């Protein structure tokens, strides 16, 4: 083979190898590197999730242990007594009548109405897909009580109401002077008994 042909062939071959290296870089190495970076990002994100979740899981485990302990069960009963799950009409009526009678007022009537549920959760946080609202709405049982008795008995009723196991909020109250020669007032008391709404 002539010297010039050899030189030309070797130059062509060298050029081909350089081009080949360039193609390998652009067509194989760069896309593979992009894939690798994506996987690395996923790994970093999952590591972060695991670190966060481990802390959360530890707290949840502790909460479950507390929740299932005898003290936890007792505490749940107290909480459910103050804010029952569902309206519990029978319990509310028994409570109101019990408080009226315990304060020596004379029970006359009680009417019940339910108002639309409302949420006490902060309104500024938007939920992302897959997230659950942690704070469920509450319902309110409106109870209109009519009872009669002395002023001292009313004050005793209010004291009992404020110390009641179930939470009652006094919304409004009216009373007028009794007829001459009588110390018996008639009280119209509007109470609100909040309860935890059941979410299916």
């Amino acid at each position, binding site marked *: *083979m*002539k010297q*010039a*042909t*050899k*030189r030309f062939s*070797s*130059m062509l071959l*060298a050029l081909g*190898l*350089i081009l*080949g*290296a360039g193609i*390998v*870089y652009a067509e*194989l*190495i760069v896309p*593979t590197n992009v894939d*690798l970076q994506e*996987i690395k990002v996923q*790994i970093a994100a*999952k*590591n972060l*999730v*695991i670190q966060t*979740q*481990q802390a959360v*899981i530890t707290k*949840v485990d502790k*909460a*479950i242990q507390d*929740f299932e302990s005898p003290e936890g069960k007792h505490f749940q009963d107290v*909480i*459910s007594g*103050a*804010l029952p*799950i569902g309206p519990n009409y029978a319990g509310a009526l028994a409570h109101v009548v019990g408080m009226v009678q315990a304060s020596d007022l004379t029970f006359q009537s009680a009417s019940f109405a339910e108002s639309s549920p409302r949420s*006490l*959760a902060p309104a500024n946080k938007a939920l992302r897909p897959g997230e*659950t609202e*942690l*704070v*469920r709405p*509450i319902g309110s049982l409106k109870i209109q009580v009519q009872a009669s008795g002395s002023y001292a008995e009313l004050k005793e009723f*209010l*004291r009992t109401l*404020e110390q009641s196991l179930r*939470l009652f*909020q*006094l*919304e*409004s*109250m*009216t*009373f*007028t*002077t009794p007829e001459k020669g009588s110390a018996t007032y008639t009280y119209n008391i509007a109470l609100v008994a*909040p309860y*935890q709404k059941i*979410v299916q």
Partner: protein
Amino acid sequence: MALPQKAIEQLSREPAKTPGWSSRALMFTGTIFFLSLAIWLGMRFGYQPLLERQDAELQSTIDQFKKKVSPERQTELIGYYSQLYNLKTLLKQNKQVSLVFNWLEAHTITRIWYSKFSLDSGKNQIILTANARSLNDVTAQLAAFENLPEITAVNFTGTSAPRDGVYSFGVTISFDPKLVTTGTQ
């Protein structure tokens, strides 16, 4: 004249290398090509499967976390948390209405008595129909209410001519919510 032996040897020897091939250039470019190919093979068939395995292991750990608390238990815990949160918020908002009576008793002058009482705890407002033997007592009571710091507004709705020597007057009092939340008297 015969040629010297050294010259004969030199002339009879073939050149060691065939001139023309640029072996150094070929070596250099070949090395670059095979190196780049080796890098790709390492990334594609060595490093990528390693990272994918790590990713799968992490995903399986996350899945185990998810299974650790069952959906039923999650619902139960969320319900319990809701109860606690709502109760705490309601207790913060709760008003001790009996304090209104204590406050009213403390700030009513002795010659005044009430014939009608209406309380709206949402508006923090009391509407009273009160009675007095003289107009001086009426003005004294109104002045007493107006000078109290826990009263945000006093609205005097008027008085009537005395009946059986008793003046009846109406007053609407708006009070500071602290009166029923902190027990200000």
